[in-house]
C-alpha cells in the first residue's frame, strides 16, 4: 500500500487531482485528497502526552521524526475501539504540519470525477458535517470527502475546553 501511494506522489499535481485515499470508520467510508497523504503505516506504540484533548492520542517516532497522532474516530465523536492489525495510521501533511490519522482500515485509492462530487446537504442544526467538505459518489457507494485543514484547526479551542 505504501509503495503504491509513494508511486502516486511522484506524479505531477494533475495526476493527483480527483484522486482520493479512502478509509473506513465503522460503516462509513471517507476520502482524503491524495495530495495530502505522505504515507500509510501500521499502528505502532504511541507515547501519550498528558493534558491534551482525547482525540490526540500522543506522538510516535516515525524514523526519527516526531509526529502527533489523532484518532479520527474520537475526533468524530464515535466510540473508541481497540486497535488491531487492520488499524492504520495515515500520515498526512497539511500546510507543512505532519500528523498521523488513526483509522479503522484503509481501503483504496479512487479517482472520483468532478461530476460525481456534490455538496453535502445543509444541516439545520449542530455542526454535523463541518469536516465533510464534499460527497463523492462511486457506483452505489457514498464517500465522505474530508476537509483536512478543518480536521486540524476547526473549533479546537472549544474541543480542548470540552476535553479538560
Amino acid at each position, binding site marked *: 500500500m505504501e509503495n503504491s501511494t509513494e508511486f502516486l506522489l511522484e506524479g505531477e499535481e494533475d495526476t493527483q487531482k480527483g484522486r482520493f485515499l479512502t478509509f473506513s470508520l465503522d460503516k462509513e467510508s471517507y476520502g482524503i485528497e491524495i495530495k495530502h497523504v505522505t504515507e500509510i503505516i501500521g499502528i505502532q506504540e504511541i507515547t*501519550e*502526552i*498528558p493534558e*491534551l484533548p482525547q482525540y490526540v492520542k500522543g506522538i510516535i517516532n516515525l524514523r*526519527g521524526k516526531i509526529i502527533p497522532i489523532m484518532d479520527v474516530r474520537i475526533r468524530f465523536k464515535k466510540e473508541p475501539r481497540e486497535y488491531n492489525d487492520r488499524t492504520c495510521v495515515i500520515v498526512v501533511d497539511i500546510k507543512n504540519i505532519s500528523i498521523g490519522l488513526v483509522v479503522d482500515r484503509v481501503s483504496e485509492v479512487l479517482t472520483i470525477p468532478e461530476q460525481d462530487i456534490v455538496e453535502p446537504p445543509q444541516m439545520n442544526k449542530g455542526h454535523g458535517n463541518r469536516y465533510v467538505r464534499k460527497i463523492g459518489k462511486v457506483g452505489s457507494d457514498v464517500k465522505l470527502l474530508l476537509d483536512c485543514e478543518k480536521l486540524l484547526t476547526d473549533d479546537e479551542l472549544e474541543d480542548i475546553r470540552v476535553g479538560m
Partner: protein
Amino acid sequence: MSDQYSNEPMLDMFVFETTQLIEQLEQIILTNEKGSCFTPSAINEIFRIMHTIKGSSAMMMFTDISVLSHTMEDLFYYLREEKPNYIDCSKLSDFLLEGVDYIKGEIDKIKSGDDTANNPSELIKTLKEFLVTLKTENNSIALNKVNSPVKKPQYYIRQEKSITTIYNNIYKAIIYFEEGCEMENIRAYTIIHNLKDITDDYYFLPEDIIDNDNSAEVIRQQGFQIYFKADHAYDSMHEFFMQTIFLRELDLIQLENDNEYKHLYEKKQSNIDSINILQNNPIKIPEIHNMNNAGMDKEKQASVTTQSIISVSIPKLDKLMDLVGEMVIAEAMVIQNPDLKGLEINNFQKAARQLNKITNEIQDLVMSIRMVPLSATFFKMHRILRDMCKKLGKEVELEIIGEETEVDKNIIEHISDPLMHLVRNAIDHGIETTEDRVSMDKSKTGTVTIEARNAGSDVLVIIKDDGRGLDRDKILNKARKSGLLYKREEEMSDKEIYNLILLPGFSTKEVVSEYSGRGVGMDVVSKNIETIGGSISVDSVTNKGTTITLKIPLTLAIIDGMNIKVGKSCYTIPTISIKESFSPKEKDLILDPDGNEMIMVRGKCYSILRLHKLYKVSTHITKFTDGIIIMVEQEEKTLCIFADELLGQQQVVVKALPEYIQKLKRVRGLSGCTLLGDGRISLILDVAGLINI
C-alpha cells in the same frame, strides 16, 4: 543589471563577507575613538576594508555601497598618505559610523530581497566636504608634498560614467600568467575585452593575440603589455587586473604624461622599440604602488587564513544534527537489539564498541560546529554604548570579560536583543550623570561590565553597572499600584523585590526616553531568555550598582538527562537540575491536613509531586516506599518528584514537541521530547515549569 552576477551563492558570500568586514570596521572605529585618534595601522586597516567592500559591492552591482565606500576610501587614502596633524576624530568617527550604518542597512535590505536602495549621496557629500576641510586645515603640510593634492581628484569615482574620450590617467600594465595555464593569448584577449568597458583608448602588445597562436609564447616570455587611458583610479585598475584568472604577476604603472603613450601608439608596429623607449623614458610609479602591493600581500594573507573557514547554512547543520541524532538511535537499536540477547558474540561486541566510539565522537563534533563565541554579540554593545553616551552626555566605559565563551548558534540569536536591552537599561537608568557621580565621590566615568563564563552546562552572562542601583521603595510602590505583589511586603527579601521588575508591565522610569521606559522592558527580556530555557536574576546595591545575571543553557540540542519511568511512560529530567535521588523511608513522609504530601530530608521539608497523578498515568506503584524520589532544584526552589524507577542517565537529543501539539496546548512541565535507544519516545520534563505548578 547583469543577471550573471545575481546568482545566489555569490550574493550570500557577498553579504556574509561584507557583514564581517563591517563588524570589523566598527570595532576598529570604536577602539580607536577611545584611544583619542586613529593609529596608522587602523587607518591602513580601514582603508583596506573600504577597498575590499568597494570592490566586491561594485562586482555585485551595488553601486550605492560601492560609491560610498569609495568616498570613505578616498578619505582614508588622504589620511594615510598625508598624515595630517589635525583631525577631528569624533567627527570622523561619526561619519564613519554613519557610513557603516548605511552599508549595514543596505546589506539587510539585500538579505531581505528589498531593492529600494537609499541614496547615500547626502552622506557622500558630507564626507567629501569633510575631506576638503581636512585638506584646507592641513594645507601647510599638504603643500610640502606637491604632487598629492594635485593628483588627488583622480581618485574620485565618476558617479555617472561619462562618455568622454578624454581620460585622466594613463597606465601601463604588464601581465604574467601562471605557468602552464595555456592559451595565454585567449586569456589576454579576455582582459582586453573586459577593458573595453572601462576605456576605448588602449593598445596592447603583442598585438595579434587572436590570429597568431605564437603570441601565446611571446606573452609567456615577455608578459602581456597593455597601455591604456582611463578615468579610473590606480586602485580600481589594479583591482580590475587582479581579478584575472591565473594571474601570476601584475605590474601596473601609472604613466606621468602621455608622451610615451602617444609615442608608442605611433610606433606600435615595433615591439622592441617601444620596450626600449619605455625603459629609457622616466616613468613615475606612484607611491601607492608599493603601498598597495603591501596591502595586497596582507589581503592575500588574510584570505589564506579565511580559506580554512567556510560558511555553512544553519538549516544544513540542523539537518546534520538531526541525522546524527537518528544515527545514535539507530546504533542503539542495533547494538541493544533484543534478537542478540543471550548470544555469545565477542567479535560483534568489539565492533559495536568501535561504532559506539565513533558515533560519540561525531556527535561531539557536530555539537561543537554549532558553537560560536559570544564575542561578536558582546562587541556590538560597544556601539550602543557609544551612541547612548553621546546622546545622554554620560561617560561610560564598557568592560568585556570572557567573550571567548562559546554557546550554541541558536542561543546567540536569542540573547542578542535581551543583552542590548540590558546594556541600554544600565546606561540609561543605572549610570548617573557625570555631575551626580562626582558629587557622590564616584569616579567620573561609569563602568558597565559584561561578563560571560561557563558554569556546568550553563553559561552565565552577567551585566553589571556601577550606577545608582535599583530603588527598592520605588519598585515596591509601583508593584503595589499595579498589584504585582505576590507576597506580603514584609516577607519579601531584597532580591525578591528586585526581581519584581522582571514581571510584565513594570517600568519604573516615569519618563519614556528614546532608549527605555516603554514598560515592555524587562519582562520581554526575561521572556526571551526563558524561551531558550534560561533564567534571569537581578541583584542590586544602592549607589553601588546593579547586577543582572542571565543563566543560559550551552546548547538546546543535546542535554544530559536522567530517564525515569512512570507506568509505561518514560520521562527525562535534565541531569543538571537533579540534586539527588533516593528511596524514601516511611518515617520521613508527612501528610498535612490539606492532603499535601511532603518529605523530610536532613531536617528540611520538601513537597512531593506525584508524576503519575499529574499526568494521569496508570501505574501500580503508588506507595512512596516502592518508587523513587528525585529531588530537583531550579532557581533555589526545590521539589521532589515521585516516579516508579530510574532507567539511567544518557545524553539525549532534544526535539521539540510537534507544532500541532504545541498549538493545541502548552503542556505544563514538558519542554520537549527525545528518542530513547530503543526508538521509544521520552518526554523531557521542564523542571522550572513543574516547580511552579
